């Protein structure tokens, strides 16, 4: 490990990084703009200037950029050197020449990296007397606001958008001091990662438009650690609330999962919480009546939910009994989920996190359009394809942190990424593709496995492609197979597992990454042993779910938004969303993660498990008395369900305290506290109690860094922006100090025998005029909750049916099709990627189809 000298003090640091990162990790405050731990160094802003000294007696030295200086052994720098200090101050002075100084009306104010850096460098007096240049702003869609005059030209936006996220429609235009960052014309940003511009931008050029609609300062937001509910990846988020409405979502760093970024569905989907469709009517008075109905019912069933917490699902399972508890998903989906949980529980293969995917150097995707079903995987894949070509840069002695030369050296060479899907995907441009019916995708997987290990079952017809994939996998250090439930085809999952097994057999360390539709699909599949197909009972209790197609004499729905189930339900109990409740979700990797109430629910809204408990009270069920708070029910799950034992470690218990203090949800600068409810009572009320967690609904409490699952905000003295995350890591870009939040429940069973799956499906055979209808998922519109957010519904996909142009001849412009007993007229889209005999129909909120493939005639 090299030793570097800062102000003549020696420090041992990790090799292969730059001086800026090393110094920040050591706790020094070196200001910076263009550098970002995920985007690395380019040396543009010149703010991280330090003095490079030859030896202890060198008093002259020379100014260098710490971000562009490698940590070679013996490198000696001074941060405090007067010339370096003067230079850094000047950089700020230059950047402020054209900045509008409009902090009071700027949405970034109070969490602005530019404000922080201005203070840090000490630039306080404006000497420039000339006019400022001004720019016109652009309309960039419903998510991101644009105010170019504030720009300090750090180039982070385009580096993230284009280089990191693969976007094409945001760029830098013009030249010298008029450089302009935007689109070639006004319009909606096309990348589903556009929201990250809000956090990447060090000042207020790109700000959160949904936040602006109900704006509040960062210091006035009440925040708590949370988990994204809009897909199965479990990205860590920090939702913020003021006056009882959820105001925004920000990224919560987790080095294993989302890192510094979120997708737009995760960032902007939150507005469903404030929806007019929220169920708010009181329910407590109806509990007695509900108990009576249950008592007199001939049969009672509980329908669990893949978007409800483990705790709520468990409570319902306890109420109705294990044998009457059904997973609220279709039969096809449940079957694929069961195969996945089987692999998680019993196989010798390690499940991959998003981070694992980004570190892989060969990837095969079977049957998933990850850009739409789990967007953050796309972001990880865009990094993964750089890993193999990194050898080119390595040969030229270019280290990865040196982003400019790194990208110049590797140019557009991409590492192996193979995508087998039914239709084109956004990632096609960086991958080799195979378009086929779901069963044929599974067959390809079997073929690849067989090419890797001849002992695995063989299929005919894939020698060429499968051979290539197998070859790339054999040469890879970190091969990953990605698969998921989108095709509702369990053969695909089994084929993917076979590929991983085969790789393990030849001595590789493969990982398998599952893509799941909901935030707690795995949790539900671990609690339920059957799906809802063809069940009927007198009384059904439907938990947070709009997937109950059956009839029942009495339907009791516990949910937060009205939907077709709540409409036909006889009783509706107002449930709390993720923002007003606590719970545990298990993500695609099998990682148990805790989310916390951001704010106390209004009126009679409460956690779903509390509604179930209330019903059980009314039924005189004594066991519910044990569920005094959240920890009790979590502990009970851990006791009763062996595979879920680990969930109690996902976060500290409610009794946890830091030096006797709770962890405040509000910042020390939280304002207006005494006036907030003075329209009701001029006396300031007592802060709401939180029996469920160590967090308080208050600004009082422990001001330092709590354990990672309890971090309610990223803030550090002099670091008011999101850049303060570095202060919560022991090494910038690395895990949060003390480890990232969440616990992995499943580790590979190394002793497990490899047993290949053998049920190879027959090859797909197109039939005349009959099509196999397969689902397409869309990042905007396919997920139930986010679709209720106005911005997302504006961009949501519209219904269509897509087929191969060869088969479109003779078909009219619209096609009638019956989906789940409802007749739809769908416009025909021609897509050359779609195989003959396949028709693709989107799964959209509002269309009554769960995405299970079926065959039908089209005319």
């Amino acid at each position, binding site marked *: 490990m090299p030793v570097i000298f800062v102000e003549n003090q020696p420090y041992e640091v990790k090799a292969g990084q730059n001086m800026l990162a090393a110094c920040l990790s050591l706790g020094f405050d070196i200001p910076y703009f263009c550098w970002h731990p995920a985007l690395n160094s380019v*040396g543009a802003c010149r703010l991280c200037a330090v003095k490079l000294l030859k030896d202890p007696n060198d008093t002259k030295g020379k100014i260098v950029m710490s971000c562009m200086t490698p940590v070679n052994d013996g490198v000696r720098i001074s941060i405090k050197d007067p010339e370096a200090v003067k230079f850094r101050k000047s950089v700020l002075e230059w950047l402020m020449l054209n900045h509008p100084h409009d902090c009071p009306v700027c949405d970034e104010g109070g969490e602005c990296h530019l404000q922080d850096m201005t203070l840090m460098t000490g630039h306080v007096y404006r000497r420039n007397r000339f006019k400022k240049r001004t720019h016109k702003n652009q309309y960039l869609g419903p998510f991101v606001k644009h105010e170019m005059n504030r720009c300090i030209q750090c180039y982070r936006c385009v580096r993230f958008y284009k280089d990191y996220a693969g976007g094409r429609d945001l760029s830098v235009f*013009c*030249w*010298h001091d008029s450089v302009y960052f935007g689109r070639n014309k006004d319009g909606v940003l096309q990348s589903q990662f556009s929201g990250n511009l809000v956090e990447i931008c060090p000042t207020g050029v790109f700000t959160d438009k949904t936040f602006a609609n109900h704006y509040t300062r960062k210091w006035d937001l009440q925040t708590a650690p949370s988990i994204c509910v809009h897909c199965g990846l479990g990205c860590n988020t920090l939702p913020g609330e003021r006056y009882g409405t959820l105001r925004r979502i920000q990224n919560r760093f987790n080095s294993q999962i989302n890192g510094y970024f979120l997708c737009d569905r995760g960032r902007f989907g939150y507005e469903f919480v404030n929806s007019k469709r929220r169920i708010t009517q009181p329910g407590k008075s109806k509990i007695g009546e509900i108990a009576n109905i249950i008592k007199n019912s001939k049969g009672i069933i509980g329908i669990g939910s893949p978007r409800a917490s483990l705790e709520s699902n468990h409570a319902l399972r306890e109420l109705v009994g294990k044998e009457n508890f059904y997973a609220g998903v279709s039969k096809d989906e449940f079957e694929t989920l069961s195969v996945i949980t089987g692999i998680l529980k019993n196989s010798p293969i390690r499940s991959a996190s998003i981070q694992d995917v980004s570190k892989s150097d060969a990837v095969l995707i079977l049957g998933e359009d990850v850009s739409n079903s789990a967007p953050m995987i796309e972001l990880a894949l865009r990094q993964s394809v750089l890993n193999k070509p990194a050898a080119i840069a390595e040969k030229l*002695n270019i280290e990865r942190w040196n982003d400019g030369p790194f990208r110049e050296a590797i140019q557009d060479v991409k590492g192996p990424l193979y995508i087998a899907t039914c239709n084109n995907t956004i990632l096609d441009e960086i991958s080799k593709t195979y378009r086929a019916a779901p069963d044929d995708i599974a067959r390809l997987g079997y073929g690849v496995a067989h090419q890797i290990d001849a002992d695995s079952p063989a299929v005919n017809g894939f020698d060429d492609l499968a051979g290539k994939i197998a070859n790339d996998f054999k040469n890879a250090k970190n091969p990953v197979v990605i698969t998921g439930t989108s095709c509702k085809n369990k053969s695909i999952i089994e084929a993917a597992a076979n590929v991983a097994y085969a790789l393990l057999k030849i001595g590789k360390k493969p990982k398998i990454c599952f893509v799941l539709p909901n935030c707690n699909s795995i949790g539900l599949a671990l609690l339920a042993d059957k799906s809802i197909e063809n069940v009927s009972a007198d009384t059904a209790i439907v938990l947070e779910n709009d997937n109950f197609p059956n009839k029942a004499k009495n339907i009791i729905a516990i949910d937060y938004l009205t939907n077709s189930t709540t409409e036909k339900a006889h009783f509706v109990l107002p449930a709390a969303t993720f923002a007003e409740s606590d719970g545990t979700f298990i993500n695609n990797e099998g990682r148990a993660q805790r989310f916390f109430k951001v704010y106390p629910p209004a009126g009679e809204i409460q956690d779903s498990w509390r509604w179930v408990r209330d019903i059980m009270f009314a039924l005189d069920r004594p066991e519910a008395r044990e569920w005094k708070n959240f920890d009790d029910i979590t502990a009970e799950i851990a006791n009763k369900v062996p595979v879920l034992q680990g969930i109690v470690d996902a976060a500290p218990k409610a009794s946890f305290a830091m030096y006797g203090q709770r962890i405040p949800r509000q910042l020390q600068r939280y304002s207006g506290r005494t006036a907030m409810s003075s329209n009701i009572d001029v006396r300031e009320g007592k802060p709401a109690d939180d029996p469920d967690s160590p967090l308080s609904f208050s600004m009082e409490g422990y001001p330092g860094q709590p354990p990672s699952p309890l971090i309610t905000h990223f803030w550090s003295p002099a670091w008011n922006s999101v850049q303060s995350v570095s202060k919560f890591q022991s090494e910038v870009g690395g895990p949060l100090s003390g480890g990232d939040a969440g616990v992995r429940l499943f580790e590979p069973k190394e002793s497990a025998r490899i047993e290949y799956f053998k049920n190879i499906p027959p090859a797909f055979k197109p039939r005349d005029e009959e099509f196999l209808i397969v689902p397409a998922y869309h990042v905007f519109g396919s997920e139930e909750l986010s679709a209720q957010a106005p911005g997302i519904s504006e961009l949501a996909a519209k219904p269509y049916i897509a087929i191969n142009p060869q088969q479109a001849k003779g078909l009219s412009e619209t096609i009638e099709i019956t989906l789940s007993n409802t007749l739809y007229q769908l416009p025909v889209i021609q897509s050359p990627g779609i195989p003959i005999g396949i028709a693709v129909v989107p799964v959209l909120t509002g269309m009554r189809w769960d995405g299970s493939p079926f065959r039908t005639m089209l005319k």
Partner: protein
Amino acid sequence: MEKPLTRNFAVAPLSLAEYEKRGGYEGLRKALKMPPKELQRLVIEANLLGRGGAGFPAGKKWSFVSMDKDSHPKFMAVNADEMEPGSFKDRVLMEGDANLVVEGAIISSYAVEADVAYMFIRWGYNLSVERVEKAIAQAYEKNYLGKNIMGSGYSLEMYIHTSAGRYMCGEEASLINALEGKRALPRAKPPYSVACGLWGRPTVVNNVETVANIPHIIVNGPEWFRKLSLTAEGGTKIYGMSGKVKRPGFWELPMGTTIGEVLQEHAGGMSDGLKFCGLLPGGASTSFLTEEHLNVKMDFASMAKTGSGLGTGTMTVLDDKTCPVGMLNNLESFFARSSCGWCTPCREGLPWVANILESMEKGTGKPGDIELLEEHTFLLGSGHTFCALAPCAMNPLRSALKYFRNDFERHITEHRCPWK
């Protein structure tokens, strides 16, 4: 006195047949019989220093290129993006003897075994493009270019790239970025272009005048070349002079000719009624020199000792009836406009400097402005910026503040430009 670079200018533009009759392509014929490493050695021995302005030994630059079998594809780019204010030597070479430039480029390419060569020509140099285009076409016809050149086994394709016209494109890495179709931004160094250049491959970028010297070195040998010069740096140099002198123009003279000789003997001295105040010796990004420097020999080493530099060797003369602040204003506005916008000091600092100078010219300069300008000559210094543009832009300003400080002060105290 031999003038290898301009000897064909009198009969310009030459047909290929005419060029060959006067010894053209002999250099290439001879070169193709030698191993590339031998060519590199000859040029190192000739001590040919890069004529783009930096004066790096050309043969040495070539020797950094990997000659391994797996180093292909490799590229050669001839930098004809001449945009340095006051400079026009590459233009006269391309217009005067395009065949020589093309032949030089082919031999240079062979010396590093480049597979493709690009002639990167400044936008607006229409006649140069026309003549180089013709020279390339003729070379292809005679198999001086293309597959298996004259049965040697060496193949080279050559293309003209007409730049979109930014000063920045003349910077080596920016030129490469521009060739790749990207914004003409400089690149972080290391790695250097000879290891990781165009499309990430080994690339040599040579100036037009540099490559034009190569055929002669090959034909006549390094010793002959070194003897052309009055100093240790080999060859002749195309010197130029503009400004209010009697006969502005360009002259091919031995390397190391003094400034005074060029001014008095070749440019005919100052125009009638004007006095010599100073000059920029090698383009706008070199420092002013004054009367005391007229005996300095114009080669890279001697000029470096003055604190200025040879640069392109094309001088701009300042006379006593021209306002130095106005001249600076003109120059710094050019540099401010030419900044690529990548790094802060250059992007923001230069316009501020230009604004101050403009304000002085208008008579609205303020006390403290000179100090602010001086501060910038430090702040925009070498190593503080991403590339050399801003530090170079500070050269004329720093020296002007030294030699013409009084003129700056008068602009402020008199609230006007004293020359107007």
